[in-house]
């Protein structure tokens, strides 16, 4: 598994992944690149193929086509040795109901090949978990905490987290965010699948968006923003009409009594300069531009115009 002389910082390298379930195509040529030390957000609507991808990365499912390396190894064939270097938290954690939370943490840690006891104690404390309660009596959030503690206290190089905070309250979510920050400083790599966009926006350096089994967008948040529209609100001294300008979408007059002098619209990044220039010609009184939120990005890709993934 040692790559002599090869400078590879790629922790996850998946190219053209295909996977079917019966007649259902779950992955249709999906690519995913995660570099060492990244906190990588993995987004997509329900059924887009996120969990399938994660299970392939864990060697729990076999890909039907394509190429995949995790930490330089084949996740199906080298599953056991790879798992020593990875930790996984599923979105829906099921624990052995007759064991206590603390016992579950230790069983999971032991099966993962070791745990840092101080870190374990810190995490139990931070997540306010009562490790003496039987797992059968835990709520969904508490079961998730058990899996999170076991994963975060491990010495894994790569953390694979599949919607790890779907059962946590906002307070615990912020504890979780602190933990991920800690992992980043430790130089660990994190693949974080989540529907909490604010969380991804806050935590992740890089983002990949999957839709219908294909990669539709990948890059840093700044890059992704650059590729999409900003929303603009502008008030001018003279009459100004953005309708029909290249790159302008959904122009609306803010206040009909102001006739042609107050507008809201969104504009493609590459046309922003030109559109603002036109407004400048009409004398800008007020100008507010907002970069797209991750939610805007996300929604843009999810709206039903299928097949336009490559559209920029």
């Amino acid at each position, binding site marked *: 598994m040692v790559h002599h002389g090869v400078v590879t910082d790629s922790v996850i390298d998946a190219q053209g992944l295909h996977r079917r379930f019966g007649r259902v195509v779950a992955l249709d040529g999906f690519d995913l690149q995660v570099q060492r030390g990244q906190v990588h957000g993995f987004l997509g609507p329900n059924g887009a193929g996120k969990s399938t991808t994660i*299970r392939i990365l864990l060697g729990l*499912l076999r890909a039907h086509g394509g190429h995949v390396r995790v930490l330089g190894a084949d996740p199906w064939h080298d599953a*056991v040795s790879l*798992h020593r270097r990875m930790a996984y938290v599923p979105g829906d954690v099921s624990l052995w109901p007759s064991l206590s939370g603390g016992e579950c943490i230790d069983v999971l840690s032991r*099966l993962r090949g070791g745990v840092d006891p101080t870190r374990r104690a810190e995490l139990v404390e931070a997540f306010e978990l009562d490790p003496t309660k039987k797992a059968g009596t835990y709520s969904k959030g508490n079961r998730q905490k058990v899996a999170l503690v076991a994963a975060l206290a491990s010495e894994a190089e790569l953390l694979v987290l599949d919607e790890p905070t779907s059962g946590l309250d906002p307070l615990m979510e912020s504890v979780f965010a602190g933990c991920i920050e800690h992992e980043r400083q430790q130089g660990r790599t994190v693949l974080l699948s989540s529907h909490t966009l604010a969380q991804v926006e806050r935590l992740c350096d890089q983002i990949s968006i999957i839709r219908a089994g294909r990669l539709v967008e990948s890059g840093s948040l700044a890059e992704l923003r650059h590729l999409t529209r900003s929303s603009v609100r502008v008030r001018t001294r003279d009459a100004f009409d953005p309708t029909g300008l290249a790159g302008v979408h959904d122009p609306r007059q803010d206040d009909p009594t102001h006739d042609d002098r107050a507008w809201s619209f969104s504009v493609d990044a590459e046309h922003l300069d030109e559109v603002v220039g036109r407004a400048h010609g009409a004398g800008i009184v007020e100008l507010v531009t907002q970069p797209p939120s991750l939610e805007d990005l996300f929604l843009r890709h999810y709206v039903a115009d299928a097949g336009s993934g490559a559209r920029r």
Partner: protein
Amino acid sequence: MSGTQGWGYATAVALRRDRVRLLATVIGLGAMMVLLVTSLVTLYPDEAARAGAALTLDNPGSTFLVGRIYHGHDYHWGIMTGHETLVVMAVAVAIGSIMVVTRHTRAEEESGRTELLLSGVVGRHVPLLAGLTVAVAFNVVIAVVMTGVLLAVGEPSIDLAGSAVYGAAVGMVGLVFAGVAAVAVQLASTARAANAMASAVLAASFLLRGVADVSPGASWLAWTSPLGWAQRSYPWHLDRWWPLVIGVAVAVLLALVGLAVSASRDLGAALRPPRPGRAQATSALPHPVGLALRLHRGVLIGWAVGLVVFGLVYGPVLGDAEEFLTQMPLLIDFMPEAAQAGGVRLFAAILVALVAVVCCVPAGQALTRMLSDETAGRTAPLLSGGTTRLGWYLAGVAVAALTAAVTTLAFGLAVGGTAVQVTGERALFGDIVVASVQQWSALAVVIGVAAVLVGWLPRASWLLWLLVIWCGVVLYFAELLDWPQWVRWSSPFDHLVARPAETGDDLTARLVQWGLAVVLVAVGAVGYRRRTIDG
């Protein structure tokens, strides 16, 4: 081999989780063995009594239940134990082994815990290997405990050689069905379905050896059944080990098949990918009875088909029962009423009664399903909608009743139809069908008990299975062990006349049972409307 990494630890976790249940099962089975042997020893204290027992047991019905008699000229306690208890003990241990394997494999996979386990430093073989290791340990302990318990009786005729063969035979059957379960959990996508599949194989091997024992021409069929291999070790007579070796070899083979499939398939996958269902519900589905029936449909159809096959196979065997009796002139002297009724009717009566008890299982499941739905949180959304509690409860009772009626009738029609073909006795068909229908009152009582449990004691639904097992035990052993009347009457099925062999009037008993069933259902309804619905 990296495929087995973490085997030891995963097994230790499995044992840790299951220690109470496993210990209780071993103690329970050991106690059952003690009970059986000591009752045989006290019931048949002298040679004359045992010779009499040998005579009465040499009839097609008993042979179907326990197996063909062996070493009948000297029917000592050892032989008695081997002949009368081996099959039933082996079946009990087989059921235990199936449960152990499915609980530690497919049930874990279904819950998502296997995914968590396999994301650790754990080989792909380990989930099944750990389950099989627990099953092997369970069966080895059972074999040792059985041998020990038998020796502890302290009778010279129950010697070490025979006891060891007996214990090993029971353990062998357990191992084979652990292997069957190891394959079943690869094919079925739920633990429930895997249990059903492996239990169906167990039922088939019971019935195959039944045919072999009753029909002299079909003796070879015993070699297709693990229970047949166990019987053919003839403990305390021939003390043969080689049939047990066959069993262990088959168990190993099945385990290897299971391991090969489990390591190459995807996690969570089954042999057949799930088929798509309807995009929209039919108009009947939103009705409580429609929904309850739809959820129970698979169980109902599976059992009905299984019982029809059972009936079709055993119809011809009924014909052999006549021959069986004519070969035993002594028995005719000993059991005049049996001789009068004829071997066919005697055997048919046992089959009808056995099937009626067995049909408690699918009928009871229609009601216990309501409880597992509740635990899974599927009931509250239903009851918070337009469905009333009473409506949902009665829908469950109705589906249970329908299941009982359809399954018993399916068997009666199938076995009656083929029996007429074989024996040429026209009246037999009607008599068998009527006998099947007249079991309904006893089934209604069992359904009533299940309804009370659903209404009042949702956490104690296991009491229902205890009752069903008890009814089976009474049917199986009451005659054999000469139990007092009051014990036998604890089973509702024992209040009925054994049609079509006996004639008699049990109309009052049946009317009382119907009345009791209605009262029980009503009592359950009160509880179901009052109690907290957990989810």
